[in-house]
């Protein structure tokens, strides 16, 4: 277990020493969401309606941007290989890296979202739903995305290929997550959406680290 926390600390320490990588992802999130009103028009009724979808799609894209850095540097300098040879189960170390990735890439999206929600004139109850939905959804994005990142390690066309592989798998999270926010904005019940998101989270927690570890071993072979 201590190895799990050790690797989270290590990854956070590494990010802290190179903050720019992460800040660019957050700026991307903000810029992308700002593009839509510019492209569509400032009709606040329309913006309120499309806000859930836009914020969620921007979150998906920002997460994917951050995924390519999840394993690539460890793969390049040989530390990933050492992790596969460690007596500590690789699944545990992978779980730690995914957790660190979420803290660095997912959690900031959750915290930024209300700010963006205000840009789209969402009411406070909807903003609350948005935060909660992203809180449940962004870990799922990190977990599923990690599988794609491991599969495409060191492969030609890695980043774009990663998007092609992972975006279809993100669709259920998008549907339930954006659906929850939309339902909240029109005053409907959101418990169904949240139960489904929670179920997806449990499912990905159960399977994604294993699939990711297997993919890493295949890449290292």
């Amino acid at each position: 277990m201590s190895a799990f926390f050790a690797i989270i600390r290590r990854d956070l320490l590494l990010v802290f020493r190179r903050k720019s990588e992460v800040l660019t992802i957050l700026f991307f999130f903000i810029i992308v969401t700002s593009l839509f009103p510019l492209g569509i028009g400032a009709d606040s009724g329309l913006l309120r309606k499309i806000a859930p979808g836009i914020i969620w799609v921007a979150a998906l894209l920002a997460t994917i941007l951050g995924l390519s850095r999840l394993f690539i540097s460890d793969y390049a300098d040989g530390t990933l290989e050492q992790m596969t040879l460690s007596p500590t189960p690789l699944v545990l170390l992978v779980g730690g890296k995914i957790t660190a990735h979420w803290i660095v890439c997912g959690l900031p999206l959750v915290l930024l979202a209300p700010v963006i929600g205000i840009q789209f004139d969402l009411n406070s109850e909807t903003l609350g739903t948005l935060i909660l939905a992203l809180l449940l959804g962004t870990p799922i994005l990190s977990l599923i995305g990690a599988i794609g990142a491991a599969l495409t390690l060191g492969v030609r066309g890695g980043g774009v290929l990663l998007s092609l592989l992972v975006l279809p798998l993100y669709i259920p999270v998008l549907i339930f997550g954006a659906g929850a926010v939309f339902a909240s904005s029109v005053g409907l019940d959101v418990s169904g959406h949240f139960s489904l998101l929670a179920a997806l989270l449990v499912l990905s927690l159960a399977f994604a680290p294993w699939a990711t570890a297997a993919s890493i071993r295949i890449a290292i072979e």
Partner: protein
Amino acid sequence: MLFTGIGFQLKAGEWLHVRGENGVGKTSLLRLLAGLSKPPEGSVDWSGISIEADPTSYRRELFFLGHRDALKDDLTALENVLIASALDGSAVSQDQALSALCRFGLRGRELLPVSCLSAGQKRRVILARLLLRKATLWILDEPFNALDSRAVELLSSLIAEHLASGGMAVLTSHQAIPLPNAKVLSL
């Protein structure tokens, strides 16, 4: 297919020198022995049990060093050593790490980011890891590369100590390695 028909046994205190020209498959063989890849035929056994049957026990006793340094450039030498041992589940104290780094001539450089160290100094950090890890079997791929003569001496004496206390090693090298009890495998 790189090679076929290879078999050998290694006992405590012995070491295997894998020799051959570039490209003949020395690295591939070492990676096979470490369990990073699987041979299409045959098996690697540790204490009579196939390493695939019980990989965790094997990995506890194994230290593998490939061509890359396995160091994070943005972390200091000390941090690299401490974190690597924590990830292996056998954390060492700061004092132990510092004395290991000191033994390999890195006193005064422990708190520098590894990116500031020379190639030879980076390899010495790995030697410190090797010392602290206390593994039984060392599989080292060209460990003497990029080492200056002083560091070559340090590594040779480290391996000799290791073998004398019952450890085992598999090494590849272009140079001759002045250690007793060698078994040689030429590919």
